[in-house]
């Protein structure tokens, strides 16, 4: 989980998983289709999303209320996934935890993407000094091992949703900047950009009208991979106790609570672990597939 770029680099090496066509045409044909695994992954994410949204409409058991008659109980009709050592309904806690995790993990990439796009577009289009300034900024972000700075900021500034989103968003900036810069450089050489300048378009107009629509596609494809990173980072922070403070349930916190109970009731940790694993895996699978569709082989970053 060192930093996003490393993570994405890691995933890039697994491109082969999606396609196994041996001949070129077979591979092209495969490339056009998403494949069964992609749809399975997408279904998992959709189910999770629907479940989290449904908390607004359907009454779930209160994830905080304790059922003293069922401490660490196995699954039953009352408690679909059983209860934890304090008698809280696991199913509810998973769903509400997902809501919190998703809120943070899905919002921060968007903020990071907005900033990364601005930086990457400017750096790739103007080059020269703008490029150097942006790269120094990015290097400075990467100069801190991510988790340490996150811990520091959350500790000193307080662990609330806003700060969490901001800190995590901050760490997605470098990768978004790199991808948008590489893609911008690719398109900035195309003649339609010169054509726009020949028509008298301002730089801002070229950036927004000519480059952004082209650059945003590959960048958005990457955001799924970045979400898997933010889910893991949020979970790690919660697990360490520097994320959202209780009582709001988060997956990381649930796993951490269950560590004490591993000997008697391992499922208290294992159930949220499973959900988190599946979610990250699904995002990786989808993101990896999406990236193949939009990759520009831009290594000069």
């Amino acid at each position, binding site marked *: 989980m060192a930093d996003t770029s490393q993570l994405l680099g890691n995933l890039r090496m697994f491109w082969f998983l999606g396609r196994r066509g041996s001949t070129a045409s077979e591979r092209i044909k495969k490339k056009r289709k998403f494949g069964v695994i992609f749809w399975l992954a997408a279904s998992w994410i959709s189910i999770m999303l629907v479940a989290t949204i449904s908390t607004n409409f359907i009454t779930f058991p209160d994830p905080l209320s304790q059922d003293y008659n069922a401490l660490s109980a196995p699954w039953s009709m009352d408690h679909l996934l059983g209860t934890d050592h304090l008698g809280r309904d696991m199913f509810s806690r998973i769903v509400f935890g997902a809501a919190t995790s998703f809120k943070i993990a899905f919002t921060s990439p968007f903020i990071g993407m907005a900033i990364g796009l601005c930086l990457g577009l400017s750096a790739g289009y103007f080059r020269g000094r703008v490029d150097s300034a942006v790269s120094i900024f990015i290097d400075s972000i990467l100069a801190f091992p991510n988790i340490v700075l996150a811990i520091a900021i959350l500790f000193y500034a307080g662990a609330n949703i806003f700060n969490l989103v901001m800190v995590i968003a901050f760490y997605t900036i470098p990768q978004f900047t790199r991808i948008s810069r590489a893609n911008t450089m690719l398109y900035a050489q*195309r*003649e*339609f950009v*010169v*054509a*726009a*300048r*020949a*028509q*008298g*378009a*301002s730089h801002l*107009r070229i950036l927004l*009208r*000519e480059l952004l*629509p*082209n650059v945003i596609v590959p960048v958005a494809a990457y955001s799924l991979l970045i979400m898997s990173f933010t889910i893991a980072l949020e979970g790690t922070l919660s697990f360490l106790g520097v994320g959202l403070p209780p009582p709001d349930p988060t997956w990381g916190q649930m796993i951490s609570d269950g560590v004490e109970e591993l000997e008697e009731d391992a499922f208290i940790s294992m159930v949220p672990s499973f959900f988190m694993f599946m979610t990250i895996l699904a995002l990786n699978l989808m993101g990896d597939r999406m990236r193949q569709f939009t990759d520009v082989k831009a290594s000069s970053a």
Partner: protein
Amino acid sequence: MNNGTLLEVNDITVEYVTQGQRFAAISDVTLDIAEGETLGLVGESGCGKSTTGRAIIQLPTPTAGHVKFEGQELTGLTHNEMRQIRQRLQIIFQDPVSSLNPRRRVKDIVAEPLIIAGNKDAADIDRKVREVLNAVGMDPDITLDRRPHQFSGGQCQRICIARALIMEPKLIVCDEPVSALDVSVQAQILNLLEDMKERYGLTLLFISHDLAVVKNISDRVAVMYLGKFCELADSERIYEAPAHPYTAGLMATIPEIGDKAIDSGPALAGEIPSPLNPPSGCRFRTRCPQAQEKCTAEEPAFRDIDPGHQVACHFPLLGE
């Protein structure tokens, strides 16, 4: 033809910095184009033809020298002042597919110059877009809502021409407009350009490496080598009696021109020297069949050898 000068280019130089080294992509280029004229600009790839074309439209502004368009000096204009001029000074590129933004619809692409110029009347924009698409032979009803990848190269070039024409410009720089197209399509686009020239009263700077293409469309032809002009003369004259050995060498690469085989000596031999480190004296001397000592020592001036026929050579070929 002598309706007055539309474009005057004086001693422009464009320098780039590559790997910490400055080099001039073009140096001391001087030319003028009369209103209604088509000036052809030929040379091998990398000789600075495109750089010249782009320097004229100030993309980028030349490092030195002057460009006057309709009597107005362009170098040193601000972005906003230049924007007004750009409406009358358009460009068409070599690769029509790459000159159209793949993510935008044709109607937005063609209307873009109008919008940049500040036209906010949707109905007027729509009317003008349809009109100009009709003019270039594209059916607006089919074309408007599609994206560039749904068209062939020739159709894309028509769309590019439509985009250039919509502001009713005076001068269009055509930067190898047919080189990327199939031969059969080339002729169509050349004919279209001629028609449009007639219809809109255009002046063209036609850049190409293909002498045969340039011959048919140009009134006068300029030949470039390694960032400098070698020869400039009427189209007829330069093809029939090239005075610069380089021009003559280029002519020999054309299988046949008209019915008269030109005895212009051997075709071009050797490699083009690096523009980073051009030869001393005459730049062509390393490949010139009649190079002499003087050519190494002294750079030939670009001078008149006849009225309207300029050559940069110490020993011009004087046929006839």
